[in-house]
C-alpha cells in the first residue's frame, strides 16, 4: 500500500510544512472540566493512554493510505474518552482544553460516545505550540440522542494543524457540530459525518479566518445512508491579503435513503485581490426521492456597505472588520451560547485589529 500525504480540499499542501507534524512529540497538558455530573451518572470522562484497536481500525479504514493518520496512531500517547451511558441528559457542557507544553508536535485524540436517548454538549479548545498538532477523533451518537460539539482552535503563529474527525449517527440521533478556525497558521481538516440510522440529522458549521501566508483547507462530508436523514453544512471563511482558503462541502445520498435532505452552503469573503479562495459544493446522489441544495460563493466586500460604514467616520480597516464579522455572523450565531461564543468573539477582535466594535 502506498501511503500519501492528506490530499483533501484540492489543495497543494507541499508548501504548508505539514511534514513537521511527524516531528518528535510534545508533552500535552489536558484539562477536563464539569466531569461530576457525568461521573455520577456512571459515565466516563478521562484521559487515557491508549485506545482500543477496534476504534483505531475503524478510523484508519476511513482513509487507509493516509500517512498522517497512520503516524498519528503510531505515536498516540494520550486520548480523551467521553462515554455517556444511555438515558443521561447532561445539563452542563463537558469542557476539554488541551495544549502542548513542550516544543514539538501535539498529537491529540478524542473519542466521544453518547448512549441512547442521551444529551450532551462537548466543547474542545485546542492550542498548538510552534510546530503544530494533529487532532483526530471519533464521535458516536446513539439512537434518539442529541450531541453538540464545538471546537475552538487557538493556534500560534506558524503552527500547522491537521484534523481528521469522524462522526457516526444512529436512528433519530442529532449532531450539531461547530468548528471555529480563527487562530493563526495552516490548517487542513476533514470532518466526516455518517448518518447511518433512519431520521438521523446533522448540522455542521465551520468558520475560518486566514491572513497573510496562511492556508486553510476544510472538507466537510455528510453521508446519508438511511431514509429521512437530514444534513446542513454551513461554512464561511474570510481571507485577507495573500491568504488561501479552500472549502469543500460534500453530500452523499445512498440508493434507498429516500426522503433524505442534504443542504450545504460554503461562502468565502476576499478582502484583497491577492487572496485565493475556492468554495466547492459537491453532491453525489443515488436516490430519486430526496431534496438537496447547495450554494457556494466567493465574493468581495459590498462597496455600498463599506461606503455607508466609512461615511460615519470609520476607517476602511475598521469598516472591513465589521463586514467580516457581518459575513461570519450566520455561522457564529450557531455556536453554543456562553463562554465559547464570547471567546470566539474576543479572538476575532484580536485577530482583526483596528477598533473592535464589540469590545468594551
Amino acid at each position, binding site marked *: 500500500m502506498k501511503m500519501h500525504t492528506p490530499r483533501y480540499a484540492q489543495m497543494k499542501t507541499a508548501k504548508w510544512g505539514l511534514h513537521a507534524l511527524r516531528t518528535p512529540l510534545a508533552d500535552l497538558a489536558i484539562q477536563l472540566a464539569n466531569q461530576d455530573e457525568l461521573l455520577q451518572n456512571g459515565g466516563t470522562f478521562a484521559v487515557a493512554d491508549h485506545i482500543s484497536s477496534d476504534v483505531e481500525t475503524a478510523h484508519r479504514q476511513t482513509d487507509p493510505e493516509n500517512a498522517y493518520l497512520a503516524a498519528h496512531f503510531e505515536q498516540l500517547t494520550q486520548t480523551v474518552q467521553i462515554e455517556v451511558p444511555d438515558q443521561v441528559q447532561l445539563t452542563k457542557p463537558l469542557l476539554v482544553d488541551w495544549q502542548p507544553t513542550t516544543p514539538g508536535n501535539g498529537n491529540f485524540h478524542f473519542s466521544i460516545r453518547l448512549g441512547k436517548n442521551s444529551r450532551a454538549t462537548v466543547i474542545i479548545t485546542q492550542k498548538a505550540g510552534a510546530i503544530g498538532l494533529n487532532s483526530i477523533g471519533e464521535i458516536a451518537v446513539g439512537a434518539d440522542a442529541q450531541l453538540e460539539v464545538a471546537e475552538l482552535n487557538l493556534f500560534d503563529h506558524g503552527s500547522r494543524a491537521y484534523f481528521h474527525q469522524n462522526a457516526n449517527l444512529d436512528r433519530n440521533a442529532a449532531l450539531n457540530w461547530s468548528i471555529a478556525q480563527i487562530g493563526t497558521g495552516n490548517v487542513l481538516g476533514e470532518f466526516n459525518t455518517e448518518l447511518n440510522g433512519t431520521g438521523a440529522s446533522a448540522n455542521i458549521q465551520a468558520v475560518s479566518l486566514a491572513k497573510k501566508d496562511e492556508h486553510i483547507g476544510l472538507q466537510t462530508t455528510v453521508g446519508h445512508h438511511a431514509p429521512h436523514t437530514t444534513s446542513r453544512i454551513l461554512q464561511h471563511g474570510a481571507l485577507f491579503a495573500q491568504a488561501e482558503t479552500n472549502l469543500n462541502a460534500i453530500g452523499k445520498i445512498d440508493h434507498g435513503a429516500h426522503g433524505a435532505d442534504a443542504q450545504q452552503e460554503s461562502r468565502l469573503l476576499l478582502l484583497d485581490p491577492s487572496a485565493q479562495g475556492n468554495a466547492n459544493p459537491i453532491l453525489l446522489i443515488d436516490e430519486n426521492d430526496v431534496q438537496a441544495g447547495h450554494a457556494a460563493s466567493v465574493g468581495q466586500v459590498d*462597496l455600498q456597505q463599506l461606503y455607508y*460604514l466609512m*461615511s*460615519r*467616520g470609520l476607517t476602511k480597516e*475598521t469598516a472591513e472588520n465589521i463586514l467580516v464579522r*457581518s459575513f*461570519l455572523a450566520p455561522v457564529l450565531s450557531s455556536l453554543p451560547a456562553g463562554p465559547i461564543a464570547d471567546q470566539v468573539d474576543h479572538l476575532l477582535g484580536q485577530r482583526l485589529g483596528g*477598533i473592535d*466594535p464589540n469590545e468594551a
Partner: protein
Amino acid sequence: MMTKLEIKNLKVEADNHPILHGVNLTVNTGEMHAIMGPNGTGKSTLAETIMGNPHYHITDGQILLDGVDLATKKVDERARAGLFLAMQYPAEIPGITTANFLRAAINARHPEQPIAIPKFMSELNNALDLLDMSQKTANRYLNAGFSGGEKKRNEILQLLMLKPKFALLDEIDSGLDIDALKVVAKGVNAMRGPEFATVMITHYQRLLDYIVPDVVHVMMGGRIVKTGGPDLAKHLEKTGYACLRDELGLDIELVDE
C-alpha cells in the same frame, strides 16, 4: 466658531454620464438650508459627492471646508472632519448592533481616548428617548430588516450621536408617517445651534413646516436655479416645477413630462 462649506462650480459625472453642471452653494454653521427639485435632477448626486461617495467623479469645481479642498479626502476623513449624510437608501449591516457601531464611530474620531461606556450609554439613551426609539432598536443589527421609516429614524439617531457640523439629509422625510416625521424633525431641531448646519433635500413642503429653513434652493437640470426664503417652497408647492422653469426661461426637460 463658524465653519463654512463652499461648493464652487461643481461638475460631476457617474459612469461617464454628466449629472451636475456647475453647482454653487455656500453653507455656514448656524444655517438651515433646504434643496428641492424634480426627480433625477442631481440632488442625491450633490449630497453623495460632498460626502465623498467614490461612485461619483468630480470633473470640475471644488468642495471647500473652511477653505480646504476636500477633493483628495476619503469619505471617512470627511466624516471625521464634520460631514454627515443621512442617506436616501441606508445600507443594512447584519452582524453589528447599532449601539456597537455608534461607539466605534464615535471612537474613530478620537481613537486615543475612547468614550467611557457610562457616558456613551447615557448619551445613547437620551437620543433614543428624544426619538421615541426603544433600547431594543439600538441592540438590533444595524438597519437589518428595518422598515423604511425605522431606517430614517436610525439615521437621525446617528446624527444625534455623532454631532457633525454639516448634516446633509437626503429625503429624510420619505416614507415617514406623520408622527415619525414630527419625531425626526424634533431630532434635527435638537441639533440646531451656531455649530451646526443642515442641508435638507426634500420633495415636500410639509417637512419644512417642522424644520423651518433659513434658505431654500431649487435644483433643476444639475444646477441650482433659484434661491430664496421659506416662501419659495410654499410657492413651488402651488405652482410646480414646470411653471418655475418657464418663469426662469430654462431649457430643461422634466422627468414627468
